[in-house]
């Protein structure tokens, strides 16, 4: 093709309509200022949709292509925008908001780096089935695929780590897509949905109405979650439960997502079944309930794992037999039949073969199941419960430092966690980071309320704790919120301290500082023969750090300072931090080494005797 003079010779395809569109799109990108007419544009549709869906808080960070949205945000005073310091914080905050409130969390980022920074948070939400809608801007649609400034194929990136995603180039499609996104995020097995919107679609005028719920469902024939259990399966399950002599309930996150904690308790009481819970099932049952048996799995209680291994029936409710729960599958509860209730059919038979599958919402399934289950008199289980009680006494005695002091009088982490639980009345929302702190929190805080324990269980995202607590505090403003973080995870996302201050978000931070990547150190000690590498971690003077941010902070290094420091932080209105300098070499026991079975727990270690 020869260049013709005056035909836009530097444009590939010079002179064509497509080339002209690209040229016009570039002009739009370079000349941001458009007269702000208050006709309804795509950006308005986004704000309307958030309000319609009851997600009135969004966590975001502006950038070139989402400026049309920030241009109209001020016209929606009912929407609270929290300006984070990094988009990962926005995604975790949306996740924390969702977990604590039961509503859909929303985060927002610009194209390119803004969008890629959200990715870790979306993957976290995906692995833990958290309803989040992530909105990103993208370059003007005519520039898609041209490697424009801050353009990346973000829907290609989020495709495998979201429940569904969309690229929207036309504002008329936005109401339908956003309604679908919220519906998908919260319905069936919840999960994150990503909506990528080109800048021109945000700016485009539209009169497209928001669809009705019925219309949204009709648009999604490929999404028809099964909610009610199949009657025949329910009968088979009820018979298995009624006949079992050593049953154990495995309560997972699905119980909380289905808000089925009452039904769980009713089943446990009616059939007299002890309840073990997964990491994400913490809080599904009040831990002081006599039938609550405790936390299972790799760092679960030995008595719980023992009960599972010796069970004749496992009643798995909304959990997925993760490898941290089962260990080596071939040696997992070999004498037990398994009843597995899950809303996602793909979870059934994925990790372990199941005898009685029941697909459905845990709450609805349990409501139908309850009347079919035989009411078991407690006396019938006397021998079983006596044995369980004995196992519990043994295992609690071997791994609990009630005195507060660990070796050489150093501050023990489990004691601090238990004091936080106690002094917050077991009613605060406690958000874990990842690693030892996460296990200590799950084991020792004593949870009594559903949705009061937040933890990145599936992805295990270090840096999750503090930003997620930020979202949780806004999602459940009636409850106190504590972030339980280690010095490793805290240093990954501590830039959000400024967000806490600027937005006056009352998160209390309990920093467990052992100057180590504690879980790394523990593995290197036990599994890699003490060959430590990159396990020691330098941190700042956290009191000075907090002073710089204007956050009140206290430090505790001895057991007798713990209560006062916690109380001081509780007395503050806004954010506060307590710096617990804990023993540097305390391990989390018991521990199931990766690749081993649930009966192969390590309970002690030479040189680090618990």
């Amino acid at each position, binding site marked *: 093709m020869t260049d013709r003079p005056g035909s836009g010779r530097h444009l590939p395809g010079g002179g064509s309509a497509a080339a002209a569109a690209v040229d016009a799109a570039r002009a739009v990108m370079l000349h941001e200022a458009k007269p702000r007419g208050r006709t309804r544009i795509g950006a308005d549709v986004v704000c309307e949709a958030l309000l319609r869906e009851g997600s009135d808080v969004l966590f975001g960070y502006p950038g070139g292509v989402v400026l049309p949205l920030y241009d109209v945000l001020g016209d929606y005073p009912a929407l609270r925008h929290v300006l984070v310091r990094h988009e990962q914080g926005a995604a975790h905050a949306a996740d924390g908001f969702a977990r604590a409130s039961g509503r859909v969390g929303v985060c927002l980022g610009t194209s390119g780096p803004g969008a890629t920074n959200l990715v870790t948070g979306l993957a976290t939400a995906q692995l833990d089935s958290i309803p989040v809608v992530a909105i990103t801007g993208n370059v003007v649609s005519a520039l898609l695929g041209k490697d424009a400034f801050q353009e990346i194929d973000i829907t*290609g990136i989020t495709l495998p780590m979201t429940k569904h995603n969309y690229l929207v180039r036309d504002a008329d499609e936005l109401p339908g897509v956003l309604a679908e996104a919220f519906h998908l995020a919260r319905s069936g097995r919840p999960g994150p949905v990503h909506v990528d919107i080109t800048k021109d679609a945000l700016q485009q005028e539209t009169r497209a109405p928001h669809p009705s719920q019925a219309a949204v469902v009709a648009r*999604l*024939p490929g999404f028809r979650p099964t909610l009610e259990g199949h009657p025949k399966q329910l009968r088979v399950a009820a018979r298995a439960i009624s006949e079992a*002599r*050593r049953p154990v309930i495995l309560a997972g996150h699905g119980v909380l997502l289905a808000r089925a904690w009452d039904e769980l308790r009713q089943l446990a009481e009616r059939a007299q079944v002890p309840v073990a819970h997964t990491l994400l099932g913490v809080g599904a049952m009040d831990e002081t309930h006599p039938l609550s048996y405790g936390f299972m799995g790799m760092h679960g209680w030995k008595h719980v794992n023992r009960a599972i291994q010796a069970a004749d029936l496992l009643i798995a409710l909304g959990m997925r037999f993760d490898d941290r729960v089962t260990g080596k599958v071939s040696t997992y509860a070999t004498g037990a039949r398994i009843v597995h209730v899950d809303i*996602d059919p793909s979870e059934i*038979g994925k990790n372990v073969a199941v005898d009685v599958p029941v697909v459905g919402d845990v709450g609805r399934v349990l409501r139908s199941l309850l009347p079919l289950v035989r009411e078991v008199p407690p006396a019938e289980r006397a*021998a079983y419960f006596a044995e369980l009680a004995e196992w519990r006494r043994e295992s609690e005695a071997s791994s609990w430092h009630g005195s507060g002091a660990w070796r050489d009088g150093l501050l023990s982490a489990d004691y601090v966690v238990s004091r936080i639980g106690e002094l917050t009345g077991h009613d605060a929302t406690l958000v874990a980071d990842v690693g030892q702190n996460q296990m200590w929190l799950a084991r020792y805080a004593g949870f009594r309320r559903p949705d009061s324990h937040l933890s990145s269980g599936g992805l295990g995202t270090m840096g999750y704790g503090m930003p997620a607590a930020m979202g949780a505090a806004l999602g459940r403003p009636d409850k106190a919120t504590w972030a339980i973080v280690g010095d490793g995870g805290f240093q990954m996302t501590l830039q959000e301290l400024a967000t806490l201050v600027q937005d006056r978000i009352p998160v209390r931070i309990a920093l467990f500082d052992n100057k180590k990547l504690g879980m790394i150190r523990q593995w290197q000690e036990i599994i890699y023969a003490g060959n430590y590498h990159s396990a020691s971690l330098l941190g700042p003077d956290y009191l000075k750090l907090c002073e710089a941010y204007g956050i009140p902070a206290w430090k505790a290094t001895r057991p007798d300072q713990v209560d006062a420091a916690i109380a001081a932080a509780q007395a503050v209105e806004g954010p506060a931090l307590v710096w617990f300098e804990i023993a540097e070499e305390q391990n989390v026991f018991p521990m199931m080494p990766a690749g081993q079975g649930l009966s192969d727990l390590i309970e002690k270690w030479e040189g680090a005797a618990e």
Partner: protein
Amino acid sequence: MSDEAARPAAPVARYVPGSGTQRRHVLVAIVNNRTGVLNRVASLMRARNFNVEALAVGHTEDPAVSRMTITLRGDDHGLEQLSKQLYRLIDVLKVQDVTQERHLEHELALIKVRASAANRSEILKIVELYKGRVVDIAAESIIIEATGTEEEIDALVALVGGFGIKELVRTGSIAMQRGSNVIEYEGVNG
């Protein structure tokens, strides 16, 4: 009461899903005919560690949907798992393992074979025997078009392989149930 709490009988090792006998399966998936759906399906199979032997995608009588035929090996558990995973995709409307029922499977192959005046008639005889068709003849090669089952195409390829294959392309199987059964699904249009 101690009898009530008796331990279960001697434990056996628990079956690990996916460790069963590997067989060839042909799955048909009805999916929304939208941008990116092929990517979603392919990405899922890669991420979930399913090794696909062939994948054929095309239009159907309904312009709103496409039909994928996926040929792969796996045990029954694995195949059930793949089908359930595919259903997690919002754009997947129906998945059916047609190897479980009476069905037809066909693929198309184009084979460019070395041929000279001396051996051309010999090749043509084989092609005829296999109900193939010669669609191009040049001085030193011919192109054979053949349709049939995977095994039939394999056999033809092996036979003409002796003359020298210059180029070979196969579409992967497409499959359909025999008789009046059809794969039913609910689409956007009901």
